């Protein structure tokens, strides 16, 4: 078996050496807010790969709510790599299709998350309601915008961040549940994805506080309405790790395995880290990013999903599966 693998590898290497420049087409299935990031990253990777190997890579993108995107890959969307909002959605693909191993998250550094983010508040200019921390979101009459945790990865991070804050402050899961119940009573619309929610808050002008990915909040702040919004950093938030992985079976079938791996590894390279920071994702190697970009990130006390909730599998089951805490508090409303 081993011998066979080695011979195959050797043959592949020999073939690669003989063959002249090749054309690859990769499909990256991603979640909503990474659109701008991957436009720039894909261009940079294609140039890098061409310089390195002489081969041309075209990268196609598909974006949508993380849960919906995972569903499409399970139903047969031929993604070479998935770059989604949270580990659970990628777990679901591994479990339902068996196209890559269940321990995929160990294959790349930092739990396969080349960049991280967190959840912050976006408020309107001058912060008219004086929102400072999570406690201000449960006051009566405050309109809170968040997408639907059932379909949006970002919304699940929102929900868990609120839960973690309340549990740390009031000491129990019951208190946290009451807190999140009150919070969701203040939510007027549940959009299906992060982008829809941003549009609701920014374009349609609904709500007072937008619970948002940090990167999405910066985008709204700097590119949508300069001077119209402010970011409020809560006293405690959650470390959001959007992971990436190769869908081995799909990539292998298209002969893209090597280039798909190189693509994801490039996210960890100095260039990849610099581009991530530029698009408001927190790089795991800040030393490679532009210091001015890194300086934009405020210091936040972050809790981690594994320590606080026992990992995504458990968090998903307790909070977001049918009949989980979200169903209980939201249906009761």
């Amino acid at each position, binding site marked *: 078996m081993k011998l066979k693998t080695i011979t195959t590898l050797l043959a592949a290497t020999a073939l690669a050496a003989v063959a002249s420049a090749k054309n690859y087409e990769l499909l990256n299935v991603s979640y909503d807010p990474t*659109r701008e990031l991957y436009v720039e990253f894909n261009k940079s990777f294609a140039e890098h790969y061409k310089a390195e190997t002489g081969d041309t890579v075209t990268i*196609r*993108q*598909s974006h949508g709510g993380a849960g919906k995107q995972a569903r499409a890959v399970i*139903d*047969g969307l*031929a993604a070479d790599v998935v770059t989604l909002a949270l580990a659970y959605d990628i777990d679901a693909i591994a479990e339902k299709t068996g196209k890559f191993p269940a321990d995929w998250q160990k294959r790349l550094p930092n739990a396969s998350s080349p960049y991280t983010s967190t959840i912050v508040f976006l408020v309107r200019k001058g912060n008219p309601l004086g929102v400072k921390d999570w406690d201000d979101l449960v006051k009566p009459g405050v309109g809170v915008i968040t997408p639907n945790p059932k379909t949006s990865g970002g919304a699940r991070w929102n929900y868990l961040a609120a839960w973690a804050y309340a549990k740390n402050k009031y000491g129990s899961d019951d208190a946290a549940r009451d807190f999140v119940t009150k919070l969701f009573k203040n939510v007027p619309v549940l959009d299906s994805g992060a982008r829809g929610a941003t549009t609701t808050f920014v374009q349609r002008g609904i709500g007072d506080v937008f619970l948002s990915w940090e990167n999405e909040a910066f985008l709204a702040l700097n590119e949508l309405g300069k001077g119209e919004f402010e970011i409020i950093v809560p006293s405690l938030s959650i470390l959001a790790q959007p992971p990436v992985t190769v869908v081995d079976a799909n990539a292998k*079938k298209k002969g893209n395995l090597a280039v798909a791996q190189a693509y994801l590894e490039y996210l960890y390279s100095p260039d990849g880290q610099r581009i991530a920071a530029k698009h408001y994702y927190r790089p795991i190697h800040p030393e490679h990013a532009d210091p001015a970009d890194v300086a934009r990130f405020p210091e936040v006390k972050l809790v981690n999903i594994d320590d606080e909730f026992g990992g995504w599998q458990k968090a998903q089951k307790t909070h977001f599966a049918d009949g989980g805490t979200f169903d209980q508090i939201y249906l009761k409303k």
Partner: protein
Amino acid sequence: MASALSNLQRTVSAPVVRPRALRDPLWLRLTLMGVAFLFLASFLLLPLVSVFAEALRRGVGAYLESFNDPDGWHALRLTLLTAAIAVPANLVFGVAAAWAVAKFEFPGKSLLITLIDLPFAVSPVISGLIYVLVFGAHGWFGPWLSEHDIRIVFAVPGIVLATIFVTFPFVARELIPLMQAQGKDEEYAAVTLGANGWQTFFRVTLPNIKWGLFYGVILCNARAMGEFGAVSVVSGHIRGETNTLPLHVEILYNEYQFVGAFAAASLLALLAIVTLVLKSAVEWAHARRHG
């Protein structure tokens, strides 16, 4: 007789000699007209104008610049390709179905009529999901297709299939009542005089139904180019590959490229307007021939 009747109608519709009893008071006529125009203006014209206003918000330069997008052009080509396959397919099917329903009696006829209407009755999202459930990786034919390396959903064939499904009834629905009203007499006469099936169809039936057929094709085409829901489910949203123009509009809008989004929308609106003009031209030509 017929011409006498139409003469009579023409006299009746001339306002000068209209009998007093048939005349509505002026205020009523003005109110009705006002309501109709106001409704049309606010619900149809205003959105259309706003599409163009938003598209041209940053000037003609920015508007034209936004067409400089290979993904956008690909979306347009895919939309036209989809229509170019779906419309002829439904043309053939529609004529065959209408012919069968209108000219023959057979068991299961009402079932066929019901089935033709099915795409109108189900939500487009369901129409898309049907194809994912049948051809998706875990669908009925999923494993077989994957073994033979054939891609249907999340690829162009799925988009074409979903569009054909959604636009299925337009031609048939347009033709069935027309052919039923025309009856079978002319075909009988043709057959009696020795015409074979194809001759009867091309020389007798087709000339009789051609205006209705044009009309159905135009409606079918409009829907094929504009379909969003069903196509969105089977597309997979791969830019430059499986995005149609309506899906491209959504993507641009979600990327805050509002000028681009409305420019693409204006392109779709223009296609719709061309369709409407064609439709009116067909109606006008038809009226002139039969007037």
